[in-house]
């Protein structure tokens, strides 16, 4: 599964995207953020304030309880600030 990071999330994680193998105990966006936060210092920093982080599954905005099982691409980003 492809995970994308934008803006300060990208800077904190230190990469724009990566491929992950979804663990079996991760079923929602909230689960995924929790799992990612446990992957190391940079992830813990990126995901320290999870309630401001927005997510999209396959280009569509979703809430934290959205199921992630069928996703091809999941993106995490701060609230969009407009152009």
């Amino acid at each position, binding site marked *: 599964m492809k995970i994308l990071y934008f803006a300060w999330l990208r800077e904190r994680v230190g990469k724009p995207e990566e491929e992950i193998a979804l663990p079996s105990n991760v079923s929602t966006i909230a689960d995924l953020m929790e799992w990612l936060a446990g992957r190391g210092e940079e992830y813990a920093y990126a995901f320290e304030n999870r309630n401001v982080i927005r997510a999209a599954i396959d280009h569509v905005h979703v809430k934290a309880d959205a199921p992630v099982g069928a996703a091809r691409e999941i993106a995490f980003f701060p609230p969009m*600030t*407009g*152009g």
Partner: protein
Amino acid sequence: MTVTIRLQQEDFDVGAENAVLARGHTDIGAIVTFTGICRDSEAGSDVSAMTLEHYPGMAEAEIARHVETAQARWPLLGVTVIHRYGRLVPGDNIMMVATASAHRQAAFAAAEFLMDYLKTQAPFWKLEERGRDKKWVDAKSSDDRATERWRKD
């Protein structure tokens, strides 16, 4: 109905885009064009540059969805949305919206609707540079109020 949505690094030419929108149409009476330009000051302090980051694919889809909403609400004959990304300095064009209709009221209303969306909720993140200091811009709540007036419940 001519719909053009482009995200690009390079600059655009408002006159050329207007000409594309109007070409071959003799039912268009009004084109409203908005051009957003990078300013040297935001929130009362100097800005030396800004960088716009976007989510390719999702950005186009989100903008297209709002263009469709505008088309459903007003009798439009054409819409163009061009948004730049990358690093821009004061004086640079940031984006443009053009709306074409038979009459001016629909063109104005649709352009304002799209601008309120693009300036507040569009899939961009903005990094402002003030000298050597770089800071990601937070979402503005005053702009969110501007978009609320379009909400139909």
